[in-house]
């Protein structure tokens, strides 16, 4: 068990600044050039913004909402708010206005930090329903000259207010930090809300410290490790990874320009720690396989030869067999011929530790990366325990499992197989929702809602969400995510929703990958215009049938997808079919595609 220092996060920050001073803390790409910020500058920014908030009337215990892509201002505002004893919460910048309204209103935020005009408009649109919001602070004021000046301030204006206050009272910032207690709530993280509206999980300083330190221990993070911040900071995993890990350990964070440019940014930064969600791994993987299809026959042949060697070595390593000299030599030949280039291509050649977390991933997906020499581990955690709680330790990688608990977590299985966790990182409850809290934390044990199994040597595997498990009319329990993830391994399948609760057989709704299937169709001279026309082509159905058959071979007969239907529309967050983190909202899908589902089971 790691030792907790019982410091508040702002204290940890001050200690870090004292230790690292002029070293680089953050890098952000601005007009194509990486600009750096030292720890000292970081502190100045946080201090100014905190004092600025104070002069705007922000009080201890008040809530600050941030609606922005990842940027340094996000971190400044977050730490500033926490320093004053406030609570920060992030809202996904991709959220539609209604969802933004729900989160800001439910959280009783008094100040909202918006990235730009787009986010500000979302708030202004629903301003009448947000009586508690006093000020809107905007990072990028472009196009907002005519906006109401009484409630809208720029980020810079707040810093100016802060500087004025600092002149009058230079010790105010430190005094505010001293008032803090490690048991105070400091951040509120909204769950993605796959069922019902998002819930605000309250987390205190000690929770964050426990998770961060035990995660750092489990991953053996050193100060020289670099991180690229690109997943939304509203998510607990990214906050730990790109805000608190550097605070406690002293790493440098680099902000990717956007999720669209992540591959370029990764190549430039070549981080040594990388956290990817399954969707990112799937994307990297399919971009390699699709590009290989376009290359010359010789290159294709090389690729397949090298991959065969790669898979062989990866499998032997994973099953802890000794690698023979011949295979080692062959692998190094493959490395210089191809793996090195592939690693560079995905930007992960310098990666020391890469991790897949935030959702279940197919083992086959990760095996591909192992084969090209990127030994990706799997981790498991959740908002309610402030992030990471299980991970493959050191070299003990078992694909398909999530490894062993980090040192601050104890776990056990409930009689029905539900995973229960206990420890200092377990959250303080849902905001304004004591019933949900009472259902989630029972006698100090966190009910994860995930069904898990434990292998003889202590590796935990997550089967599925308890409420998602399907029971067919034959009485067979089936974990849909297992099948769905296998389907998504195909570069042609973007999304799959397995159905069959109370039915005779298992079926699936499948959304094809527009780009990859489009390319496939073009190569075969099949004419299509839009996503809809593409999905309706019989040839595409046949293509997906192949992918489904391939997956079916791996499962028992009862678990086979007997029928499937291609969605003629891409699932979207704006249409309420997905959460901000691109998780499917099953209930909405069942309702929205009721007719299609009926069609599957009728004939």
């Amino acid at each position: 068990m790691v030792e907790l220092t019982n410091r508040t996060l702002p204290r940890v920050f001050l200690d870090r600044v004292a230790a690292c001073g002029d070293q680089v803390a953050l890098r952000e790409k601005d007009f194509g050039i990486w600009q750096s910020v030292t720890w000292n500058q970081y502190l100045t920014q946080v201090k100014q913004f905190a004092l600025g908030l104070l002069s705007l009337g922000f009080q201890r215990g008040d809530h600050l909402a941030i609606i922005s892509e990842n940027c340094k201002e996000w971190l400044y505002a977050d730490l500033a708010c926490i320093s004053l004893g406030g609570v920060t919460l992030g809202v996904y910048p991709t959220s539609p206005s209604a969802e933004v309204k729900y989160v800001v209103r439910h959280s009783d935020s008094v100040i909202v930090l918006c990235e730009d005009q787009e986010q500000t408009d979302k708030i202004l649109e629903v301003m009448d329903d947000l009586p508690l919001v006093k000020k809107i602070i905007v990072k990028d004021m472009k196009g907002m000259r005519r906006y109401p000046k009484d409630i809208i301030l720029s980020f810079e204006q707040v810093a100016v207010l802060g500087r004025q206050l600092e002149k009058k009272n230079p010790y105010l910032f430190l005094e505010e930090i001293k008032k803090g207690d490690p048991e105070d709530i400091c951040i509120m993280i909204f769950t993605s809300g796959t069922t019902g509206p998002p819930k605000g999980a309250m987390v205190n300083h000690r929770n964050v410290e426990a998770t961060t330190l035990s995660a750092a221990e489990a991953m053996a993070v050193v100060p020289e490790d670099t991180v690229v911040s690109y997943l939304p900071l509203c998510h607990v995993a990214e906050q730990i990874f790109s805000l608190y890990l550097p605070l406690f350990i002293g790493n440098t964070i680099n902000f990717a320009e956007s999720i669209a440019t992540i591959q370029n940014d990764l190549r430039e930064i070549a981080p040594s720690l990388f956290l990817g969600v399954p969707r990112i791994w799937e994307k990297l993987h399919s971009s390699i396989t699709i590009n290989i299809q376009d290359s010359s026959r010789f290159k294709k042949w090389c690729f397949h030869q090298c991959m065969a060697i790669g898979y062989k070595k990866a499998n032997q390593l994973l099953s802890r067999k000794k690698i023979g000299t011949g295979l080692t030599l062959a692998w190094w030949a493959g490395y210089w011929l191809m793996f090195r280039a592939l690693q560079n291509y995905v930007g992960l050649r310098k990666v020391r530790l890469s991790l897949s977390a935030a959702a279940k991933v197919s083992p086959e997906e990760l095996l591909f990366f192992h084969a090209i020499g990127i030994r990706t581990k799997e981790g498991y955690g959740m908002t309610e325990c402030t992030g990471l709680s299980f991970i493959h330790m050191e070299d003990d990688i078992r694909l398909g499992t999530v490894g062993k608990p980090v040192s601050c977590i104890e776990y056990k299985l409930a009689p029905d197989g539900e995973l229960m966790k206990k420890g200092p990182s377990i959250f303080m409850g849902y905001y304004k929702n004591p019933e949900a809290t009472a259902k989630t934390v029972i006698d100090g044990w966190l009910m994860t809602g995930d069904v898990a199994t434990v292998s003889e040597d202590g590796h935990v595997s997550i089967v599925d969400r308890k409420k998602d498990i399907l029971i067919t009319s034959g009485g067979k329990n089936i974990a849909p995510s297992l099948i769905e993830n296998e389907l998504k391994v195909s570069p042609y399948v973007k999304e799959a929703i397995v159905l069959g609760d109370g039915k005779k057989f298992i079926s699936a709704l499948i959304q094809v990958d527009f780009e990859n299937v489009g390319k496939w169709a073009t190569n075969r001279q099949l004419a299509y215009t839009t996503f809809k026309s593409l999905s309706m082509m019989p040839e595409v159905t046949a293509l997906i049938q192949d992918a489904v058959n391939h997956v079916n071979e791996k499962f028992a007969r009862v678990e086979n997808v007997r029928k499937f239907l291609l969605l003629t529309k891409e699932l979207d967050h704006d249409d309420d079919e997905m959460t901000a983190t691109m998780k499917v909202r099953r209930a909405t899908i069942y309702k929205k595609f009721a007719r299609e589902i009926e069609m599957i089971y009728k004939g």
Partner: protein
Amino acid sequence: MSAILEVNNLEVLYNNIILVLKGLSLKVEKGSIVALLGSNGAGKSTTLKAISGFLPLEDGAITDGTIQFLGEELTRLSPHKIVKKGVFQIMEGRRVFEDLTVEENLICGAYTQKKRSKMIKDMDKCFAYFPILKKRYKRLAGYLSGGEQQMLVISRALLATPTLMMLDEPSMGLAPLLVEEIFEIIRQINENEGTTILLVEQNARMALEISNYGYIMENGRIVLDGPVDVLMGDRDVQEFYLGMGHGNEQTSYRNVKHYKRRKRWLS
């Protein structure tokens, strides 16, 4: 109705390096007016040039896909053969022969017309559509006004009696009243002569008003297609092509946002 023109998965490369069309497919039905809309650089003009065989002149080449006109393959035929098959493109920017008179310009258009009597009859028909051209009959085309030049190139196309007439930005650089007049005549030509029309336009509102079917192009691909009334009701089309803001009003420049709503092209 059957499609007289079918473009399947067309891929066009300029200079062996610039990929302009990335698998474009569209169909034009007999007797219809089809609008092809899209922003600058989407590949609209390239599509027309590919159909009429002009690409080699600009170092472009069709690297993949097929173009079929009335069941015959047009891909990689030379332009004059394509004209003879009944496909005529009116190029962007009013390409009149400036040093020839109106009369001579029109005669050039009748290149495919063997019978002189038919040509004279056709010419009279043009003058019925555009009476002004008769007055300018002996003038040099270079001295005509922009609107008159546009009328002249349309007449020149009419004289070739095409089955499919393709217009590239007929409204470019013309006064709004003239644009309306020209579009009205395009509609009449389609109605009276039965000429099928494929129309490329920046002026989406005008184009959709006279068309039956529309395709919207972006980055060398079709992103949305449908009958015009469906397209007009689409939120993305309204905002990005018809300039309507939220709530069906025309957006004022003062309220223009610095961000764009994410386009999704739901069909």
